[in-house]
């Protein structure tokens, strides 16, 4: 069996692990357009801050590819997929045959039409890859006025700003929405976050956008003009608006694409033997109850694993995921889970605030918790995300949750379960239970 994995990141490697769990002999080829072995891509801002280094940024062990007997083709771009003859065509014209194909190509940064933006300039760019981070590191050294503009106040923009700030730049975030992290946070938490940013040398300009980058004689940015008419000095301009699924190479392949790749419950695309996972697919959103692109690491790993198991011949289904994210801004941890800005008036919202250090928000749909924001104190956040994903009824616990006693739900519910079979624990063999292979897994 020839397995070909396009994409050498979370979804792709999770898929490799899952295949190797069930198929020890199949031939695995990993194709990636980057020349590096797998690295932790969301960590590139931490790389600029020095929290992760050239030694620790690598996602897997050094001998990961040898250990899993995977052939690697790094620095090669896939130009098309021939689904009829089961070939992957690379940009240099060479052909890789596959029996089962996994597409985990992730996202490409989205750049809105912007006058003067030239990604080839050493002082301008997007912020999703290690090379982008290295470029910014070099750019910050030659910046004359130490002024950087980050377009987009989402996660990418925020992380890029933190990285640039650590390089000694004064950063201004320009965000179209009324607050930073506008989709995940609400007004209060957005304000707290913005204050924290401002205190640490990152300015935020909201409800505004950059319409033009003014260039100097060498083609590098000099300043930017905002929609409101303001002009800001800029040595470096980073566009961190968001990512779009990387599906351009699938044109004409017959694989169904609607924004992202459409997959079924087994993560298979509309073409047999081709699977997909990660930021590139449209997955089922269990909170909003509709297909959605959710580009986060935990879901990429889950989807890769489900796809890998199915590719190796083990039937598994993916129940769908939900959006959740965690970020720390200068010592202020923020976790957002599920639906945080409800539009439906039937949904009820409960909040709790302690100055500018602690904020909690719960969104209930009837008796079911559908979303939460935890800011400042994040203990037990995972319990909330499990409750939300599960759809458990927990309205009676809202006061406990708001006070931060998230564990009270676990104590009440798990205490009983744990003690059901107490006298029964030290029984001997269970003849009918197969042993789970927990070894050789990752």
């Amino acid at each position, binding site marked *: 069996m020839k397995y070909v994995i396009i994409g050498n990141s979370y979804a792709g490697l999770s898929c490799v692990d899952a295949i190797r769990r069930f198929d020890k002999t199949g031939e695995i080829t990993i194709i990636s357009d980057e020349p590096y072995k797998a690295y932790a891509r969301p960590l590139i801002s*931490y790389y600029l801050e020095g929290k992760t280094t050239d030694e620790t940024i690598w996602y897997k062990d050094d001998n990961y590819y040898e250990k899993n007997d995977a052939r690697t083709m790094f620095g090669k771009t896939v130009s098309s997929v021939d689904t009829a003859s089961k070939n992957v065509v690379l940009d240099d014209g060479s052909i890789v045959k596959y029996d089962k194909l996994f597409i985990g190509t992730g996202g490409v940064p989205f750049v809105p039409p912007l006058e003067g933006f030239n990604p080839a300039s050493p002082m301008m760019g997007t912020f999703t890859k290690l090379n982008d981070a290295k470029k910014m590191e070099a750019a910050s050294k030659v910046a004359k006025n130490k002024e950087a503009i980050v377009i987009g106040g989402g996660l990418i923009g925020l992380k890029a700003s933190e990285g640039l700030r650590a390089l000694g730049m004064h950063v201004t975030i320009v965000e179209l929405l009324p607050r930073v992290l506008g989709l995940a946070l609400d007004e209060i938490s957005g304000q707290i976050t913005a204050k924290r940013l401002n205190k640490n040398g990152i300015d935020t300009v909201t409800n505004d956008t950059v319409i033009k980058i003014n260039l100097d004689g060498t083609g590098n940015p000099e300043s930017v003009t905002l929609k409101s008419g303001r002009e800001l000095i800029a040595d470096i301009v980073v566009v961190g608006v968001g990512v779009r699924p990387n599906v351009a190479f699938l044109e004409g392949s017959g694989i169904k694409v609607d924004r992202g790749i459409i997959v079924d419950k087994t993560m298979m695309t509309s073409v047999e033997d081709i699977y997909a996972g990660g930021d590139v697919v449209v997955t089922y959103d269990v909170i909003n109850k509709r297909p959605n692109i959710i580009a986060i690491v935990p879901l990429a*790993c889950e989807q890769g694993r489900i796809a890998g198991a199915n590719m190796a011949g083990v039937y598994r289904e993916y129940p769908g995921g939900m959006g959740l994210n965690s*970020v*720390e801004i200068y010592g202020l941890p923020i*976790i957002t889970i599920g639906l945080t800005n409800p539009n439906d008036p039937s949904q009820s919202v409960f909040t709790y605030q302690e100055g500018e250090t602690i904020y909690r928000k719960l969104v209930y749909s009837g008796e079911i918790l559908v979303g939460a924001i935890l800011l400042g104190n*994040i203990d037990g956040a995972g319990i909330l995300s499990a409750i939300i994903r599960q759809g458990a009824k927990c309205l009676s616990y809202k006061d406990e949750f708001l006070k931060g*006693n998230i564990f*009270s739900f676990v104590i009440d519910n798990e205490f009983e379960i744990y003690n059901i079979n107490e006298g029964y624990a030290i029984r001997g063999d269970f003849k009918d*239970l197969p042993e789970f292979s927990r070894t050789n897994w*990752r």
Partner: protein
Amino acid sequence: MDKFKLTNLKADLKKGRTEIMLYPSKCDGCEGEEFHACIKACEEHMKEKYGKYSGARVSIKKKNGKFFPVICHNCDEAPCVDACMPGARYKDAETGWTLTNYKKCVGCWMCVMVCPFGAIERVEGSHFASKCDGCIDEDVPKCVSACKRNALLRTGIKNYSYERRLMVAKKMYGPYVKMHYAGIIKDKRG
């Protein structure tokens, strides 16, 4: 895959494949004493073992006179491993334990966000997420030997503990921890 081995306590112990089981009803939170014995023992041991990355990996939560020790349940297909962006959290191939390479941890709190048992703690000062490592290199984990009430117990009955956790998890967390048996693999492949 087609080898169905049965569980065997002795064999599991020999292989070092052990788990720490919880019996919350036995826990009395070491009432009347200054410290919880398990927490103190863990704290000391972790300082010895990890140095900079110290701090107790077990905690006890209390509600209405009930005590509940919170400790890593060592999930199969652990959500914290999935969520870990730097790849610091990993499954150890030999023991099956979910371990952590703290040098890689950057403190993004993704694992705190997904752990359905709330067993991962954010250590603010040193900026890392700490989690129980099962003390697999010890004969008996320190928390277990410290517990006078036998509320924590080391067991080698992998299947039983797994089944039991699955039961708990399924009741609480549904499809999140759904697992297909090896038997299905067999069917599929003929």
